[in-house]
């Protein structure tokens, strides 16, 4: 009952919500670290087992797909079973799945373990977890908490790569995988001991809620079919297609393509694995800056134009990438800066447009589906990139193709809300591009 002791010790010193945030932060970081691993494993796995790029990519793509698809349902699951229980189960599942990959001998085992087990397991440890913790435990500072937890998820995906890459190079891929599984196992008891589902469970109010505030009844269990009802509604909306279509392209061009294939592509151009991993890590660091600035901008500018610029610049930097590989490190560094600032900068404007379009009360489920299409895009790019690499022997077409669809996304986002938007007066000048 160490947990109880800690709980008692914390009481009076700080709000227990911060412990919950710390535990969630660690869990999201660990999950993100786990999800980032395939990029550094790609070439070692090919070398050891003789699998093609398409084979390994397929497992990654299944993983990304299930991770995304599970998102909209994860909230319901945590409502029913409790956050802590879901977290513990997922961590155990993921650590086992990851650990077992060291024993695999055939490619279907990679798809089963990495694709299905780890994909489903990490699906619950995604942005929805952060949102749930922030909403339940905090009445004040909710934005800060949400920002912290989102950053740990997005950035954690990239910052561990240099460490993992150097382990792969110096000790072998199995040790890197075991380290990742081990981190999951270390976090697991912390969650079991310290995580609490709800402040009321330990006689507390959410942080910052005045003592005399009326107790808000816990919302009734969301119906299990609510996500499907939302999806059905979305499918009839032009803006839903535009939003999820552009977000599909976002996922395709970020964690699907660059997250999965930048390291193998760099290695094929003679760049050492650790350097390539550091490149991705620096994208992850710049991403914090980009996303913060983007959040700030999204309060001030038309979000459609913001997104248009983000996708446009991202498309151009992908078209430039084949040159960057030819120009040693300077070009790649420029690419990292450009791409990093843009990595998940698309999230704040997209979320805001979704809220404007579907109303604040529906945005949770609708954004869940839009985010699922992001992962669907990521899964498509992870597998498609591998397939094209196997067929063509190079990544040029893949990168250029992704650049072109980003330009398509730049056009799509400008067309959001057009049906309902009043036709602008002929002489009105619209700022931006």
């Amino acid at each position, binding site marked *: 009952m160490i947990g109880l002791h800690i709980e008692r010790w914390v009481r009076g010193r700080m709000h227990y919500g911060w412990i919950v945030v710390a535990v969630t932060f660690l869990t999201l970081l660990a999950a993100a670290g786990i999800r980032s691993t395939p990029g550094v494993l790609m070439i070692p796995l090919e070398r050891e087992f003789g699998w093609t790029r398409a084979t390994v990519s397929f497992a990654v793509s299944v993983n990304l797909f299930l991770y995304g698809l599970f998102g909209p349902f994860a909230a319901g699951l945590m409502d029913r079973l409790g956050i802590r229980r879901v977290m513990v189960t997922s961590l155990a599942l993921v650590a086992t799945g990851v650990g077992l990959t060291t024993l695999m001998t055939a490619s279907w085992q990679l798809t089963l373990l990495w694709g299905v087990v780890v994909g489903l397991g990490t699906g619950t440890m995604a942005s929805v977890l952060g949102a749930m913790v922030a909403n339940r435990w905090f009445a004040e500072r909710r934005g800060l908490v949400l920002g912290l937890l989102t950053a740990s998820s997005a950035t954690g995906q990239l910052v561990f790569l240099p460490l993992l890459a150097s382990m792969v190079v110096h000790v072998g891929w199995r040790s890197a995988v075991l380290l990742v599984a081990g981190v999951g196992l270390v976090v697991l008891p912390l969650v079991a001991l310290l995580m609490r589902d709800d402040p009321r469970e330990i006689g507390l109010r959410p942080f910052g809620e005045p003592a005399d505030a009326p107790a808000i009844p816990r919302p009734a269990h969301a119906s299990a079919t609510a996500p499907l009802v939302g999806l059905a509604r979305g499918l009839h909306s032009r803006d839903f297609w535009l939003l999820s279509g552009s977000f599909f392209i976002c996922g395709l061009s970020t964690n699907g393509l660059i997250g999965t294939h930048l390291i193998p592509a760099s290695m094929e151009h003679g760049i050492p694995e650790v350097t390539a991993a550091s490149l991705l890590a620096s994208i992850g660091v710049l991403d914090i800056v980009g996303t913060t600035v983007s959040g700030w901008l999204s309060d001030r500018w038309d979000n459609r134009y913001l997104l248009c610029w983000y996708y446009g610049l991202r498309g151009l930097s992908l078209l430039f990438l084949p040159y960057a590989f030819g120009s040693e490190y300077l070009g790649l560094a420029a690419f990292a800066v450009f791409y990093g600032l843009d990595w998940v900068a698309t999230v704040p404007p997209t979320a805001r447009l979704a809220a404007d379009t579907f109303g604040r009360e529906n945005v949770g489920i609708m954004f869940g589906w839009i985010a699922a299409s992001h992962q669907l895009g990521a899964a498509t790019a992870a597998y498609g990139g591998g397939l094209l690499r196997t067929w063509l022997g190079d990544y040029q077409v893949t990168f250029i193709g992704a650049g072109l669809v980003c*330009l398509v996304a730049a056009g799509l986002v400008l067309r959001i809300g057009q049906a309902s938007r009043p036709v602008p007066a002929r002489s009105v000048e619209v700022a931006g591009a």
Partner: protein
Amino acid sequence: MRRSLAPVAALLATLAAPGGALAHARVVGSDPPDLCAGVSARIADSRCATGVVVAAPPLVIRLTFNEPVQPIGRGIRVVAPSGRRVERGPARASGRDVSVDVEAAEHGTYVVSWRVVSGDAQSEQGRFAFSVGRPTATPGLVAGVGRTASGSGFVLAAMGRALHFLGYALGFGSLAFRWLVLRPLGAPRVAALDRALWRLTRLGVAALLLAEALVVLGHALRLGITGDADVLADVLESRVGLVTGQRFGVGLTLWAMLTTLETGSSITLKLGLVLGIALAVIDGQAVHAVSVRPLAAGLVTNALHVAAMGTWVGVVIALLVAWRVAGVATLRGAIAKRAGRVATIAVLVAVGSGALLSFQHLTGTGDLATTYYGRLIVAKLAALIVVLGLAMAARRVGGAPEPWWRGELAALVALLLLAAALVSLPPPV
């Protein structure tokens, strides 16, 4: 437009001076050597069919080109007398050299065929023979020396390029018409004219996108897409794919901008024009401009030429469209005058830059008569004179200028077709 005769004279004068330029990949040396290098198919004899006879089997076949190239597919194929392929692994490119390991223990005549993409994104192929120990018969080689390229592929690629130029003129020329002709007039916007002009821009976008598909398909056909599905893949992975991707990207960007452009945003209009200039520079990568040294000189000259041409053709088309729109009757005179001035400047720039381009790509005036490239330049000049004649007639002859403009446009389209053929041909070195 009368002033434009002086640059024409200047063009003719500059053609007399030699210019040094490399473009289109050619084999300049090989190991084993090609006995019939540079010999045209007409005078090739049986020695070309068997090639040089070497005593010891070569371990490596090496081709040296006049410029760095990218091998397509396996790059070099070597067929043994028995009909077996004897090259081991894909060809390696290193600077201007492309080589492949071979197992040529068999005695007899071997046929080496190669396919590459050059620095200016042109696909080239050829073949030659050599014999180990003693020559044997290799039927069909003499006729096939360097002449295996598919004609339909060449035509398709040239069509694609013509469509690209037309798309450029429609898409960006119509924007130039807005910026250079309509805006300075300060006239109130006429909705019908606006719509008609946006239709031109949209047509331009469609043409730009379709053109790239034709160009890629043309290159693939030219290299023999039939029988080797990987050729398409290799064309896409080569410089052709790189440049095609960029041009396609510009087309898509213009499409993305359309929604905002149509609101009348002047910032977006400016961005659109910048995009047009960028495309003109990008175009230089796919023609012979990249072979000019210094590189910037080639790219700038080519960009000026493309942009001026696009502005000229686009303005003429937009003028014809504007003429028909009801509601601009009062503006007709002013628009025509202003458009004439813009077109004149565009012609001056086009002729000046064209003269420079010819200077960069011809070795002397003799090339004008003896090479296809030179003859096409002469044909372009002739078409240009027709166009200028029609433009002047539109001014001087009384009555409706519209039929003259239509004639000018027809001649301009012919000029575009000639330009498309020109950039598909190897310039003389």
